């Protein structure tokens, strides 16, 4: 415990090696010369160049996978993000949030004021106008999106999209904002476009089953490119809040791919392709309404359980 606290304490703040926006660069030249036997000197004017502010931002999510949103407004769901001022000026950022489902609402945005990584409504300050106060170059802060579910069940593909944009301006790299940089210099959009977005998948905690499907691709050369003979592994994750009976998962084989025989599993255990004693089968003729597909009968399912079905297809 002490060791981890110590490690945090000595973690160096991010050092910005670049010249800060608004820094005046002053130059004066000196000349010496001889006139009528005497040595003299003269200085030039002093010319000043104000370093422009380059606008760049990064936004990353803390954590992975889908976030389970509780249906009760009394128990908000917190989604943390880390926002970084990634360039040489002191800059504010505007956060724009978009929820794809009306069944989930945004209660607000807050800054992790005490830096402990946890949302505490008594300490962590709500953002005004969704605007993050100025951050010095290189500084990162954690921002919390506070979500609340409703009694309505959101669509299975519900998402939260958060976009951060530099307050001074954003857009195509190189876009200039004359005189709007730190110290009265210019501001110019950097390589990130001065904006960054993160999409977070959301699932409801409302009683009832939820099915989340994901896939991974492996080509014959070991890469993840989807080409002929690449194998796609599909993962169907079924979550149950309540005990149910007669649960069954069915999924068609996508057009242009062929089922890999013997690849069907339930919770890691292989299932035969034939329609026999075990829970699963592959039906080449029409396991689903959409044509060939797999089907797994889960039967009696316990409350608060998760079952994972996997199968592979090969790209034709």
């Amino acid at each position: 415990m002490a060791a981890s606290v110590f490690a945090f304490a000595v973690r160096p703040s991010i050092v910005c090696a670049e010249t800060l926006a608004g820094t005046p660069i002053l130059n004066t030249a000196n000349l010496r010369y001889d006139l009528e036997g005497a040595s003299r000197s003269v200085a030039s004017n002093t010319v000043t160049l104000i370093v422009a502010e380059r606008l760049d931002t990064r936004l990353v999510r803390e954590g992975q996978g889908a976030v389970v949103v509780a249906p009760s407004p009394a128990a908000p769901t917190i989604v943390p993000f880390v926002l970084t001022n990634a360039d040489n000026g002191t800059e504010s950022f505007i956060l724009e949030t978009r929820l794809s489902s009306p069944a989930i609402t945004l209660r607000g945005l807050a800054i992790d004021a005490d830096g402990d990584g946890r949302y505490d409504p008594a300490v962590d300050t709500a953002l005004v106008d969704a605007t993050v106060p100025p951050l010095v170059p290189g500084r990162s802060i954690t921002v919390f999106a506070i979500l609340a579910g409703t009694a309505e069940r959101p669509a299975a593909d519900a998402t939260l999209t958060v976009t951060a944009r530099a307050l001074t301006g954003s857009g195509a790299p190189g876009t200039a904002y004359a005189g709007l940089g730190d110290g009265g210099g210019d501001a110019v959009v950097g390589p990130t476009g001065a904006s960054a977005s993160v999409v977070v998948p959301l699932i409801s905690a409302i009683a009832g089953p939820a099915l989340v499907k994901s896939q991974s691709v492996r080509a014959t050369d070991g890469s993840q490119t989807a080409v002929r003979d690449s194998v796609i592994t599909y993962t169907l994750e079924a979550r149950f809040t309540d005990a149910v009976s007669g649960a069954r998962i069915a999924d068609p084989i996508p057009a242009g791919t062929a089922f890999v025989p013997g690849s069907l599993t339930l919770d890691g255990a292989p299932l035969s392709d034939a329609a026999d004693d075990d829970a699963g089968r592959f039906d080449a003729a029409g396991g689903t309404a959409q044509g060939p597909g797999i089907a797994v009968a889960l039967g009696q399912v316990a409350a608060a359980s998760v079952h994972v079905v996997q199968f592979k297809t090969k790209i034709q």
Partner: protein
Amino acid sequence: MITRPMIAAVLVATAAVASAAAGPLQVTSSILVEARAAAADGTTRIALVKPSKVTPGDKVIFVVSYRNTGTQPLGNVVLDNPLPRQVAYRSANPGSPAPDVSVDGKTFGSLETLRVRSLDGSTRAASPNDVTSVRWRLASPLAAGSQGQFAFQAVLK
């Protein structure tokens, strides 16, 4: 192909203020940036223009112009330009004589002849990043009414 027009013509437009010091030698210091434009004949022309939106990593050109406004020749003319610490020296600007450089503000010479001493006492060959000052000497007296300029390139740290 890249052509470089005379810097002097551009300098006039930058509204640089000449030294107010009385005396026969006028010196004007400017900081400029390159602007590339495609010419009708397919070549790229580089003009030096007033800087805007200069950010770390950008190349800037320091130009020092001098002129003998008096009636007598001036001998042993030496121009010193200590570098602002926020820039790293790169080279003489094309068309300008190469300066002698210094890594300590005392010893001047060509970069290849200079060495940098480390904290442990060892030395290594100097690199452009080590340069802290540049210097030019006029080999012959500057005649009355004559003028010239020196320029070097640097990168904003």
